[in-house]
């Protein structure tokens, strides 16, 4: 009760010197606001990264034809990636769950009677379904027998079905791709829209042999999807695949590669937009601004100790102990940083909301930044408040009253 009264007396001093309190608080407000906004963007970004990586497959490595560093769609004019390359990867790289080569062509015309649609065409092996964890919702998927016999069958996405068949039953019916008739044997599970805005369900898959020899008439493939047994092995496996491909394609660095290897880490970096380093730098800046705010607050408090010698001396004369003066001044600094924390939290929340509505940056507000804000406020209030409080408490009453 006694301590509470003394603490309240400190709080009253703050409300009496409003301009001074404002300046003491400014650093904390800005620092906390920045911290909360940065953490909200950071958390939003990480959620987006997680989503993208999960879409991609956290264990998936893609070996894609054509150089460069960008994501698919690949450069389909490069014709050097072959089924033999896929086979070599399968045979010489350890700890792989599966290796699934794919031939592909983007937006080929599909026809059925009067209906037409341009779709993505994938020639696949049976393990494609496992490689993408993407199965049929009706009918059957591509089988080993289909591949072995170059069977004229296909599995279509929901969009293709709607465009070509409408309400009609598609099973056993024939559609035409480059004048090759293919019998529909399955419907792919619905996947919706890609992050890039494309329609996942506008696609047709057929046996890779059928695709290469009957439809596309090519002896090369577009990509190999490789699933590792352990994501932590990815860096080593990527190195090994690259070396293997260099050997097989007679490439000597710094000669440019005719293939690309995309890993979940690359997907994550692309999804992040701002790099992790920049994000950490921003966090450091926010924390630095808090520290600078703390130093400013300490200086103002130290000045105020000098300016309020009379008050300190008087209170000592009236019976305040050193401890009481210490508590009063520490209360002032803590009240400043805690109040600054509250205002900064609102400001940071507002800034996050503005970022969310005006930019494409993902924003997720959670309770963690606010907890961190409270901790920072307490730490800074204490750390930078102790020195002025101690100086105030050490003032000799006689000196202070002079």
């Amino acid at each position, binding site marked *: *009760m*006694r301590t509470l*009264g*003394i603490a309240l*007396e400190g709080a*009253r*001093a703050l409300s*009496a*010197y409003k301009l001074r309190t404002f300046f003491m608080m400014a650093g904390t407000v800005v620092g906390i606001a920045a911290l909360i906004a940065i953490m909200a963007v950071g958390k939003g970004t990480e959620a987006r990264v997680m989503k993208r990586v999960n879409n991609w497959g956290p264990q998936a490595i893609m070996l894609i034809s054509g150089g460069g560093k960008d994501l698919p769609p690949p450069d389909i004019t490069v014709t050097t990636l072959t089924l033999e390359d896929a086979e070599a990867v399968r045979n010489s790289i350890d700890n792989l769950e599966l290796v699934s080569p794919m031939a592909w062509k983007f937006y080929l015309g599909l026809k059925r009677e009067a209906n037409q649609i341009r779709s993505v065409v994938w020639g696949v092996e049976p393990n494609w379904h496992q490689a993408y964890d993407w199965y049929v919702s009706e009918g059957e998927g591509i089988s080993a027998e289909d591949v072995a016999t170059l069977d004229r069958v296909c599995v279509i996405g929901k969009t293709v079905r709607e465009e070509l068949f409408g309400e009609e039953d598609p099973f056993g019916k024939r559609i035409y791709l480059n004048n090759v008739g293919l019998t529909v044997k399955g419907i792919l599970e619905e996947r919706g829209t890609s992050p890039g805005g494309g329609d996942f369900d506008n696609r047709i898959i057929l046996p890779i042999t059928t695709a290469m020899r009957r439809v596309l008439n090519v002896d090369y493939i577009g990509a190999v999807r490789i699933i590792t047994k352990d994501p932590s092995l990815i860096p080593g496996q990527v190195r090994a695949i690259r070396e293997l491909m260099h050997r097989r394609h007679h490439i000597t660095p710094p000669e440019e590669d005719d293939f690309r290897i995309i890993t979940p880490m690359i997907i994550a970096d692309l999804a992040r937009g701002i790099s992790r380093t920049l994000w950490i730098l921003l966090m450091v800046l926010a924390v630095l601004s808090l520290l600078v705010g703390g130093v400013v607050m300490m200086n103002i408090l130290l000045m105020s100790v000098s300016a309020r010698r*009379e*008050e300190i*001396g*008087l*209170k*000592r*004369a*009236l*019976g*305040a*102990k*050193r*401890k*009481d003066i210490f508590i009063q001044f520490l209360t002032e600094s803590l009240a400043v940083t805690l109040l600054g924390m509250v205002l900064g939290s609102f400001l940071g929340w507002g800034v996050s909301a503005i970022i969310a509505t005006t930019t494409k940056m993902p924003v997720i507000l959670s309770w963690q930044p606010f907890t961190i804000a409270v901790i920072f406020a307490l730490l800074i209030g204490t750390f930078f408040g102790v020195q002025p409080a101690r100086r105030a408490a050490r003032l*000799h*009453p*006689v000196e202070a*009253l002079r």
Partner: protein
Amino acid sequence: MIVLENIEKTYENAGQKTPVLKGISFQIKAGEYVAIMGPSGSGKTTLMNIIGCLDKPTVGNYYLEGLDTVKLEDEALSQVRNRKIGFVFQLFHLLQRTTTLKNVMLPLIYAEKYPSNAEEIARKALAAVGLADRIHYRPNQLSGGEQQRVAIARALVNDPAIILADEPTGNLDSRSGIEILAIFKSLNEQGRTIVLISHDRSVAEHAGRILLLKDGKITGEEMVAEPRDAEEELRVLGQKEEDA
């Protein structure tokens, strides 16, 4: 009640020793009204600081109501100031940022136990100095005399053993000064011990006894046979004003 034995106080500054009090002994009984009088530089303020337990003597003993104050640590000394001493300063020393009521309540905050009826106590103390209608004023809205009355109310609020007043009229016009001295007189009549420090004989003569301080020593003691009557002086002053 107050016993000083051979009090010496020496200030040390950059190796230079400056003796201010050079062996002071006297006693003040409960209920007495004593003035300590001396010219500036005689050590009045230093002596007041020691009597008020704001400072400790370099040598000597000081007993306040039997309590050996020299042996006390800062914390205990703070409590002694809070419980036993009511200060009245020349410069009032009121907190400008708050109301008279809060100013008067200030010593209660630092009491061992904060009384639940703190506000009531403060109101009573303000009423006792005639400022019942000024409780929500801020010091800068009051005259000098009124501010000093607030300070006296503040000194009274913890029901101290002694009122220690250092040049309480020094910053006031003569009429306000006499009003303050009238309050002291009535407080003394109610049994309050008052120690008044002043350089001004006309002020000191309101007390029943005057201790003369010069160059850090008590050079004499006068019993005032007929102390000045502040109330009477006020009446005279009032008549003069009417005449003029």
